[in-house]
């Protein structure tokens, strides 16, 4: 890719020549004055021809960004050039502003992320111009690579504890007595009890010493299984079932990790991915990264590697319950005897688009039949004791988890 003359240089040379020729032919000295700026510009541009080819570099300022937020695409030209024009075209999921900018040095373009996933602009190209606009190189592509758009974690607050806290430290009241804040019972003093546990107010009214006991506060283990085998849209612009599933998974993971729980994630899609249980902020970033890289897609059979979850793990399946291939996965999840809760991520206004040329009445009838099948799956799950709750944001799981926590106690 080499430097080539611009239309500006051709215009300057051509107009200077024509003006001087007309001045001589028509005998009009005024045309000599009109030729001067073009002649000077052409002379300066010809002497400023660059010798080496520049290279444009585009880099994301951040490796990842949460959906709904924005980052910057830094644009830089390495090499000899006076001005450089950058064109960064918005894609369906990335908004670039400005989309075309001419600058004489490094510049930046603001890129807003609309939807989670691995995204890139529709096109990034540069056009370098030499001194006095005489020569140019490009347009040449400059790929910045892909931007990982993390699913937005919604503001989520749940008051219900998880059913089987079995860890060592955490925020859930366990079934074991020990040092904690959750009141358990008042009983007679026994050897080994701490003196500060004595309830003096009650003991003063009884012949023996009584102590208050508390429940230990432990962490729990959660496995979030998100079904991206189908992606059903509602009204245009509204969240799809995959959007709801991924955002709900990120939200639940963030909530439980903030409580100190261990969280694992399994993504059921065209290529399934598993994140082993872990805790901490870095683990949340890992989960968000895996969710962002997931591509909704169907599969004949869901690859379901053996579950290696500790006893007491609560499994939360987030699914629109539409994929037929999900049956195997449900059987696998149920066979482990773990507590299973299904979060229904089908949008309330879901109506899958009909193929072009399909009779709308026929499509509506097919969707009604599919909805009946789905209702049968929900009923079957509830018959085997699996609660199905729709995703409604904060507190969606409170009632179910509270009932499950109360059961074994």
């Amino acid at each position, binding site marked *: 890719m080499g430097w080539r003359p611009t239309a500006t240089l051709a215009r300057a040379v051509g107009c200077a020549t024509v003006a001087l020729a007309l001045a001589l032919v028509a005998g009009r000295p005024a045309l000599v004055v009109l030729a*001067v700026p073009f002649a000077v510009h052409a002379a300066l541009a010809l002497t400023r021809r660059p010798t080496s080819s520049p290279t444009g570099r585009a880099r994301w300022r951040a490796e990842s960004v949460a959906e709904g937020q924005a980052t910057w695409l830094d644009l830089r030209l390495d090499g000899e050039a006076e001005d450089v024009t950058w064109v960064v075209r918005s894609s369906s999921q990335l908004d670039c502003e400005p989309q075309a900018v001419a600058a004489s040095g490094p510049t930046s373009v603001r890129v807003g992320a609309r939807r989670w996933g691995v995204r890139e602009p529709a096109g990034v190209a540069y056009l370098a111009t030499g001194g006095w606009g005489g020569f140019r190189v490009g347009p040449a592509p400059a790929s910045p690579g892909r931007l990982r758009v993390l699913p937005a974690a919604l503001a989520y607050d749940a008051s219900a504890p998880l059913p089987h806290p079995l860890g060592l430290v955490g925020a859930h009241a366990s079934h074991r007595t020990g040092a904690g804040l959750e009141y358990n019972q008042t009983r007679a003093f026994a050897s080994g009890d701490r003196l500060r546990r004595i309830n003096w107010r009650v003991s003063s009214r009884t012949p023996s010493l009584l102590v208050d006991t508390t429940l230990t506060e432990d962490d729990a283990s959660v496995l979030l299984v998100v079904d991206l085998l189908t992606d059903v849209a509602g009204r245009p612009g509204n969240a799809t079932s995959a959007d709801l599933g991924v955002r709900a998974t990120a939200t639940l993971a963030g909530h439980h990790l903030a409580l100190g729980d261990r969280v694992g994630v399994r993504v059921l899609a065209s290529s399934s991915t598993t994140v082993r249980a872990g805790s901490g902020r870095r683990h949340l970033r890992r989960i968000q990264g895996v969710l962002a890289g997931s591509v909704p897609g169907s599969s004949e059979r869901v690859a379901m590697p053996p579950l290696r979850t500790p006893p007491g793990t609560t499994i939360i399946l987030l699914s629109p319950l539409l994929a037929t291939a999900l049956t195997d996965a449900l059987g696998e999840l149920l066979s482990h005897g773990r507590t299973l809760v299904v979060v229904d991520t089908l949008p309330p206004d879901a109506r899958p688009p009909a193929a072009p040329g399909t009779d709308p009445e026929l499509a509506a009838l097919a969707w009604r039949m599919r909805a009946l099948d789905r209702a049968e799956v929900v009923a079957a799950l509830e018959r085997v004791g699996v609660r199905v709750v729709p995703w409604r944001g904060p507190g969606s799981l409170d009632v179910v988890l509270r009932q499950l926590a109360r059961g074994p106690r």
Partner: protein
Amino acid sequence: MIARGLVLLGIAGAAVASGAPLVGLLVCVVLGIAAGALPDSPAPAVATMAVLGAWAAWGHGLTSPLVVVGVTGLVVAHVAAHLASLGPPDLRVGRATLARWSARGVVLVALSAVVWGCLVLASHRTPSAAWVVGVLAALGAGAAALVAARQPGSS
């Protein structure tokens, strides 16, 4: 979009300054519209040459100050066409680039005004010498520009 408008404005201004009749003006304006729409094509060159043709056919004499108006219009159109040719219509030109090219336009107009002044002075004394001075001035300006361009650090 402003740069594209300035292309038309410069062409039209230079054509009006030439004193061309209405038909000539219309031709220049139509070509100016084409130049504004396609700044990275030969259209601006064709429009500029049409204005030069108008100056050759109907233009004022050397002593008229409208010569400076004409050269200003042509420089405005030339610089604006270059800035517009840097990218698509939604291009946002950086402040430094805009300032540099504005300064260059002013310098080119000033240089032309100096040449015009020299030619006018020379034509008052010895009209036959006007051509010699004019050509010498143009060559001198070109040579000075070349020398300035080769000096390191000059822009």
